[in-house]
């Protein structure tokens, strides 16, 4: 009987995970289009269904109806496998995410490591798709994606380590439990959150780090040769990633499902108000992601790599050392950590842009005036 229940439970969670991916992707596509339209002083899709609510579904059906085309020279196995595999990351990452109290698939004791490991699957399938297409744009896009995602995984991992250090456990449910009573890690370590957030934008291949599919240069990057639902899988994964990554950030830094009256309504052993808070926090972060995309121009490959290797990784290392020292030696380390991290946070946010502009101004002054 226990085995049967276990199997049922497993099926339930897989179904939920897939459902979350698809629903989140469809919702996010519409949300981004409407938000982009709002930023661009337009209306956006508002004809299909009330306020265009069915637009994504119509698009999905359009994609399914398209010809499933594979170029003659493409590698048949990898070309077919890549769009299937691309979902693995987004789906299985949810297995360690507590949506709410009592709604968690597996409480892994190495949840944080699982998170990092499983996100790399996306890189792999993007690289596979780009290589298998036998198209130069796809190849360049795929390689760019691999280089970028591997580079940004390092600062991401560094900030994850800090979270694990603060909590003293790699179990995701422990991380959430630590943040009860509004002791959010995002408040103790805002700078760590900033590094994580920036690298997660790069992980998601989104603007300003959307080089792998920089449409003005590489047509559609690694997905150039894909059409129909195969392309649809890449597309769905990209947009589901917005929600999934925001869920991870909420869990790690903003108290997961914790919130006012989170335990008030419990039904089937699950507290539903917690789920509500979880979604609210997630969508605040999704909005920020979309906003950032349409506010900052795309970086160049060398700038992107320089940003990861020359700025984020050294800062992440310094951050990890300082945090460890504070936890080890400062008696009331929580407050010490908060002071340190907020100071660094404001220093980074306040100084980065002025320093960059000052350097640019100097460069401009040195730049030679054109002459015959």
């Amino acid at each position, binding site marked *: 009987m226990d085995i049967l229940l276990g199997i049922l439970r497993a099926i339930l969670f897989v179904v939920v995970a897939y459902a979350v991916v698809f629903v989140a992707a469809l919702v996010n596509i519409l949300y981004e289009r409407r938000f982009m339209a709002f930023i661009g*002083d337009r209306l956006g899709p508002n004809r299909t269904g009330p306020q265009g609510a069915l637009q994504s579904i119509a698009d999905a059906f359009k994609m399914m109806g398209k010809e499933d085309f594979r170029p003659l020279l493409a590698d048949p196995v990898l070309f077919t496998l890549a769009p299937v595999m691309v979902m693995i990351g987004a789906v299985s990452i949810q297995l360690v995410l507590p949506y709410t109290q009592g709604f968690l698939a597996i409480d892994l004791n190495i949840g944080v490591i699982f998170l990092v490991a499983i996100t790399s699957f996306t890189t792999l399938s993007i690289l596979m798709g780009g290589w298998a297409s036998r198209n130069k744009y796809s190849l360049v896009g795929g390689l760019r994606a691999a280089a970028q995602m591997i580079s940004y995984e390092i600062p991401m991992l560094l900030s994850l380590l800090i979270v694990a250090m603060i909590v003293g456990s790699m179990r995701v449910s422990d991380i959430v439990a630590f943040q009860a009573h509004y002791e959010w890690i995002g408040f103790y370590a805002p700078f760590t959150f900033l590094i994580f957030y920036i690298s997660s934008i790069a992980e998601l291949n989104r603007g300003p780090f959307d080089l792998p599919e920089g449409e*003005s240069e590489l047509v559609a990057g690694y997905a150039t040769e894909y059409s129909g639902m195969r392309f649809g899988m890449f597309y769905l994964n990209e947009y589901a990633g917005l929600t999934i990554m925001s869920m991870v950030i909420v869990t790690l830094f903003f108290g997961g499902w914790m919130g006012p009256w989170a335990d008030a309504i419990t039904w089937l052993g699950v507290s539903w108000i917690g789920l509500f808070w979880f979604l609210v926090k997630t969508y605040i972060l999704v909005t920020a992601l979309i906003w950032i995309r*349409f506010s*900052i121009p*795309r970086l160049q490959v060398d700038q992107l790599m320089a940003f990861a290797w020359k700025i984020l990784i050294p800062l992440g290392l310094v951050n990890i050392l300082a945090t460890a020292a504070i936890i080890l030696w400062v008696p009331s380390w929580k407050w010490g950590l908060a002071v340190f991290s907020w100071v660094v946070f404001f220093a980074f946010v306040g100084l980065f842009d002025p320093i960059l502009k000052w350097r640019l101004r100097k460069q401009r002054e040195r730049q030679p005036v054109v002459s015959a």
Partner: protein
Amino acid sequence: MYDHFETPEPDEAVKLALRRIDEATARGEGSDLGGLEFNEVVVNMGPQHPSTHGVLRLVVTLDGELVKDVIPVIGYLHRCKEKLAERRTYFQYIPIVDRTEYLASINCEWAYVMAVEKLAGMQVTRRAEFIRVITGELMRIASHLVAVGTFTADLSPLGTAMVFYMFRDREIILDLMEELTGARMMFNYYRFGGVRYDLPDGWVERCRDFLKMFPKQIKEYEALVDTNAVFLQRTQGKGVITQQDVVDYGITGPNARASGIDLDLRRHRPYSVYPELDFDIITAQHGDIFDRYRCRMDEMRESLKIVEQCLDMLPNGPVQLGSLRAPYVITPPPGSVYVGQENPRGEYGTYIESDGSRYPYRLKFRDPCFCNLQLFPKLLSGNKIADAVAISGSIDLVLGGIDR
């Protein structure tokens, strides 16, 4: 199953690119992999690439991210515009001129009409001259808006918002033009000796409203883009056109002025009523992407100034020669004429050879974009792909004018 799909034979441009690679290898100018394999790839950008603005095709030789060589291929939009002129009367050809460089069609019309007027020795009524300047400058603003908008869209998704702001403002200009001419892009408005219609009631006020509103918008765009460190980093010091290039390749327009060459036909080969108007010629010093962008932004301000003065000075009187309408058939004396006009993209010249009949014997356009395109191989080589896209966006090509 995939029998119908075969790898196509490389065409002439691709073969040329491959031959150049072979020649470079023979000369020993391989890529710096320590004499290993020569790893350059030839990539087709266009004619359906998202950032080539129309149907330009660039055969690009890439060494990793680095552009080694560029071969522009044109002709995908060729519609025999010059040959068509030989079977049409001078009057019948006016709407066809509109369709050459479609973003600033009224300026092209102006160049053609001016050439015919010079050939036939016709005078233009004074009110019509002012209306021509007003419409021409409004279209210059509209054209620069498209240029800057699409250029920023090449750089980022931020630009996709910018491009809509700019099209929103261009829409106001197009509405004004629609009210005046009945068309939004292909105006067919200028006539020999004047213009087709007089200004409708209230048009001047509506135009003044636009003049009042638009400087604020320019300021807003500048606040969005000019203070953005990423944008500055990607545009400053890249794609520099030297003054020697400007002279060698015959670059004109904002691209030449951004390199510090003070060349503007409105001032230096004056036509129409420009000598009576007070405006500055915008130049910059560095000749890079950022300066070309700045030149366009500042030129919009100057155009606003010109339009404002014209509205103030607008005289009363007829807008066409004769009592009712412009002459349908004119037969200029035999001879040839060249007239250059300051198009938003540079010198748009019309050369007409007449044999005294109702049809031009030969008609030739000098399109600024065609000359600017010649610089592409030199300008793009040695840059990264992303920079190459930004540079080609900043040059502002219109393929309708190049291919004609």
